[in-house]
Every structure is written in C-alpha cells, then in structure tokens.
C-alpha cells in the first residue's frame, strides 16, 4: 500500500505563556522511519499529537501527501497511533479492540448494534471482511490464542502487541508511536524493538517514532530528529548524529551518561589551551571564538603523564562496567573527566595515580559560544 509523505511547516504551539513548540520544520519521505528524540518535556509528544490531530497547532501547517491536515478530524487522517500506555478499551476483548477501528469506520450505527445489527442486510458480509483482517493481523502478531481475553488479563508485552495490532489492522498510510516501549522491561523492549523494525521492513509505512532513548532511536530509524525545548535542533541519520552533533545540547543528550566538557578560550596558534597543555582539535581549527570542547569518554585515552600533548590528570575513582571501565580523573581547578578504557587495563589503575589524558583530535567537538560552528557535514533541516 502506498505510504504518505509528511511535511511539517513551521509548526508552533503555546500553552499559556510557554512555547512548547517553536517553528518546527521537518520533511519526512514516504515510507521513512523517523524518530523524534529528546528529553522529557521537549515537545516531541506534542508534535506527534498535532500530527495526529489530537491537538491543533497555533501556527504552521501539517501536510500529508500534499494535502493540508489542519481541519481534518483525526479519524480521517488515515494514520494510526500507538500510545505509551497502549490505551486499550478496557471492556472489550482483544478481538474487539483490534476490530474497533474497522467497526467504527465500516459499519453504520445501526449495524453496530449488538445483536440486531448483525442481521441487517450487508452487515454479514462486512463483518466477515472485518473478521478476516483482524485474524490476519492477530496471526502476524501471534495474538491468536488471546483473542477472547480482556486487556486486564494480559501482560504488558501482550497489551503492546494488541495496541500494535489495532494500529496496523487498518493498513494506515502513517504510523505514529509515542514511546511505545517505555513501559516494557529491558529484554522485552529489545525484542519488541526488533518486531517493530521487522514490521516496518515488510510494510514500509511512513513511521514517526517518539522516544527519549537514543539507543532505540539509533536502532530503528532512517533518520533521527533531535528536539530540545520545543526546537528542532538537528535531523540526520543515526550514524551522522553520533559523529556530528550540531550543538552542545545534542552532544550531551547523545553522549549519556557522560560527556566530557571543558570551556576554553579561543584557539591560539591552532591549539586549545587547557591548563598548561596545548591540545590540537581538528574541529576547532580556524575558529577564532572561545567555546566548549566536548568529547566522549571513548574518545579519551589514558597514557603516561609525561607524554607530550597529554593533560596531566589524577585518578579519582574507577567504575567497572563489564568489558569496559569508566575512569574518573581530575585535572586540577575542578576540571573532571571520564575516560573509557578496557577492563583489563583498568585493573592496573588505582585511585591517586598520576596519568596523562589524551583526546582524539579527529573525533572531539568544539562548540563556539556564539554558535558559529563550522562543521564538516551536518544537515540541520532536511
């Protein structure tokens, strides 16, 4: 079935005195899987609800397949929504939950009546067609054994699949998913993530996925749109995002839980001065501004103190995490860093050790405070 493309033009929304969304522009191609990524409260769910028609934008437009959606009721937008809490109808069976969108659209009010409705001419055929599609969907999601149960009798993962089924059964042109995996335990989350990926591959429906979990975003998406404080900061493929965050907020968010940051003055002679060391960072070359140097723990290494170009640091503590370890060091004047090294190497380190910290000059980022970052390739608006 043909999927639709989606144009979000300059959408803004206000609640009282706060701007929840500000001038968001985003173009999503038909069949693309785009994730809206950001911390809680950044406006991503609001944007999703505006696309769905559950809320109305205060400015800007949303277009699907070229047609403006602003005055179209949610049920007429040909999209489906999967809620974080699944939002199943508590008094209906799994079968009826999945059938609901079809029943509401294809049967008239009279035909929907409990017993009599089924006896009306034409109703029988429509009911059979509905049943066929419901069973097809439930087979796909392995819900066949559960069709008679009520939501209250199901586990979290099962409810999730029913919610997916209800969304899929209509074969909509656009899928909207609002943190659907957030309420699942870790193992189930990974498994269901795989299911969603597989379904997308098969059905190729345009999908917009909201999450605050960057691993999820990276695993599922063609592109990720990072939203902060109501603003769209960056839209890029996951790998590009990882390599080239457009600003410090995005870098911080994607580098959780640790991002090394240090404020530096403008580079002098092509190098940044940190303490008494001169460090060369590719990203800072050519910039005449002061700013923040940021780098991930995995882009830092610990070497001998005397090595030229290394920052003298002292080990504060070591956190082991399976195959790797995070080593916390401080460089005097309150500057603290985290380096990620192998667990073996970490074995030989102790608190108080004096070492040198080197930073990968290719991979570290420099964010001038005036926002004038010249970056190699980053696409801000796509």
């Amino acid at each position, binding site marked *: 079935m043909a999927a639709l493309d989606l144009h979000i033009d300059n959408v803004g929304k206000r609640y009282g005195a706060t701007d929840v969304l500000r001038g968001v522009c985003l173009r999503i191609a038909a069949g693309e899987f785009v994730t809206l990524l950001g911390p809680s409260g950044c406006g991503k769910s609001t944007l999703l609800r505006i696309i769905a*028609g559950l809320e109305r934008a205060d400015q800007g437009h949303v277009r699907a397949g070229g047609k403006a959606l602003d*005055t179209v*009721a949610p049920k*007429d937008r040909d999209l489906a929504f999967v809620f974080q809490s699944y939002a199943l109808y508590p008094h209906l069976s799994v079968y009826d939950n999945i059938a609901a969108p079809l029943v509401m659209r*294809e049967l008239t009010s009279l035909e929907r009546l409990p017993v009599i409705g089924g006896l009306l001419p034409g109703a029988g055929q429509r009911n059979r067609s509905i049943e066929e599609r419901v069973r097809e969907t439930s087979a796909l999601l392995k819900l066949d054994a559960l069709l008679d149960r009520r939501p209250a009798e199901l586990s979290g993962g099962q409810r999730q699949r029913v919610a997916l089924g209800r969304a899929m059964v209509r074969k909509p042109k656009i899928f909207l998913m609002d943190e659907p995996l957030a309420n699942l335990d870790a193992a189930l989350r990974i498994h269901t993530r795989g299911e969603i990926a597989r379904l997308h591959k098969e059905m190729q429906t345009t999908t917009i996925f909201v999450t605050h979990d960057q691993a999820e975003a990276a695993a599922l998406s063609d592109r990720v749109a990072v939203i902060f404080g109501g603003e769209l900061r960056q839209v890029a493929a996951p790998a590009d995002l990882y390599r080239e965050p457009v600003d410090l907020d995005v870098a911080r968010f994607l580098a959780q839980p640790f991002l090394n940051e240090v404020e530096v003055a403008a580079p002098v002679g092509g190098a940044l001065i940190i303490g008494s060391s001169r460090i060369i960072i590719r990203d800072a070359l050519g910039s005449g501004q002061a700013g923040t140097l940021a780098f991930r723990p995995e882009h830092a290494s610990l070497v001998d103190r005397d090595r030229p170009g290394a920052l003298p640091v002292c080990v504060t503590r070591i956190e082991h995490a399976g195959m790797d370890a995070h080593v916390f060091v401080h460089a005097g004047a309150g500057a603290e860093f985290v380096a990620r090294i192998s667990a073996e190497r970490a074995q030989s380190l102790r608190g108080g050790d004096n070492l040198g910290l080197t930073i990968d000059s290719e991979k570290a980022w420099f964010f001038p405070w005036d926002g004038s970052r010249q970056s190699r390739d980053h696409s801000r608006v796509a």
Partner: protein
Amino acid sequence: MAVVDDNPIGRLAQNISGGYRPARAQAQAGMILALPATLLLAALVIGPAALVFFLSFTDASLGLAGVRFIGLANYTRMLTDPGFAQSLRNTALYVVVVVPTSIGWGLLVALLIARSRFAIVYRTAYFLPVAATLVALATAWEAILHPSLGFANSLLQLLGASPVSFLSDPSTAMYALSAIGVWQLVGFNMILFVAGLSTIPEELYEAAAIDGADTGLKRFLLVTWPMLAPVTLFVTVMTIIRAFSVFETVAVLTQGGPMKSTSVILYTFYEEGFRFFRVGYASAISVSFFVSVTFLSLVQMHVSERRARWKASGGR
C-alpha cells in the same frame, strides 16, 4: 478513508465550521452531555432553593391568593415563638446525646473488632440496623418500649425497677428517640472507622512500642487517634448533619408529642409547611436549618484543622 458517521449532530458541527477542531468538538459534546443535568439542576435544586430563600421573606401560604413581602417577620417570629424554641431545644438535646454516643460507640466497636476473629459476624450484626427500613424497625422499638407490657419494661421489672413510659412520658420520650437514633447510626460510623483503622500502617505501632507506648491507651493516644483524625472529622460532620435531620422516628412514633417534648426542627418544618401550609414561615425554618447545619460543619472542620496545625507546630 471516509468515516461512516451518521450522527447528525457530529456532521452538523463539521459542516458549519468548515473543518474539525479538537477543542471545539469536545466543547460541543461536553455541552450536549451536560445539558439535561444542568437544566434539571436548575429546575429541581438551585431554582427551588432560591425560591425557598425568597419565600422565607414573604407571608406565602397555600390557599392564600397573594404573596406579600414581609421582610424578616418570619425570622423574628421564629426566634420569639416558644414552640420553635422548644423544637430547637429538643433537637439540640437529640444531637448532644446522639452524636458523641454513636461516634464513641462506633469507634469502640471498630477498635475491638480489629482484634477479633469473628469480625465479619460482628460487622454484620452492627451494620444490620443501617441496612433496615427505619420506619418498620421503629415500630418494633415502639412495641419493645411499650409502657407496661413491652420487653424493656419486663426486663426492668425483673430487675426490680418500676416501669417507664418511654415514649409517652415527656421527660423520657426524647431520650428514647435518641436511643433509637444511636442504634441506627452506630453501625455506619463503625464501618467508617474500620476502614480508617485499616489504613494505619503497622509500622507506626511498632515504632510507638519502641518509643514506650506499648499498652492500649498509650498506643491509642499516640498513634490511632491522630491517624484517624480525617475519618473522625468526616464521621462527626456526617453524624451531626444526620442527627439534626432527624425526622422519621418522630413522624412515625410521637408526632412531636407528648406535649411537644419530641418536636424537632425538621418535624416542625414539615408541620408548618405541609400541614398548616404556612409556606413562608416553613421556608424561614428550612433556611435557618440549612444555615445552622452548614455553620456547625464549618466550625467542626475549622476546629479540626486548627487542632491539626497546632499539633504539627509542636503543641502537646
């Protein structure tokens, strides 16, 4: 994909405005759904209540053609009428006897039941009067309290005392009705206290025991009573309102007698309004009733809040 929405109201809404707006669709539905209730609320509650308030300042009476505005005359009459003063006294007596007794007894039973294996049996027995039709049971009480032949007097005679005409002696009638009132209210208060007690965490008692409060009374004062405060407030306000609203036992058993010793506010109101049809006067009575009951409830809530705040700030 078109939706088969053959709901005329929905379609109308869409066509008029040229499109869907979530806020407006909800607002329209809200108004439609709330309309019947709003109309009935105005017609059957707010309207009549306002009318009664207005009538209390008139000399309205069923049968009389006109209605004259007479200002506060009804209220002054109420305050100077010895009959009304009597019914005020009687009601006050009833409240003073019934409220503390039914609350205290309810609390006591709730505390005792908590320790007993037969909790369900006791709970059923104590709640039975609440479930039953008071009018029927009141007539049973009347027979039990029969002046010479009733069970109560037979018991008294067995114990060597002389018979008492519970309901026909002006000095005892109100007390007899109060006893029936307590009998009917205890079970309800008990259940509320049982529910309240069940929310007190066991750990509080353990902490109290470590702090030295290990016997019944100390434990009660340190943990149980303070933790029950919101329930107690609720029970008290409810019981006060219900005690003030006593009507059925009076209407069935004594009709205000003997010698007006059991005439209570609501019964006087009923007589004035629906027997003597002095509508204006009855309205004044009901307004005063409403005001005093609300006032008492507010006082009770205020006192309770004050006590809680005082305690929280360290008072002991």
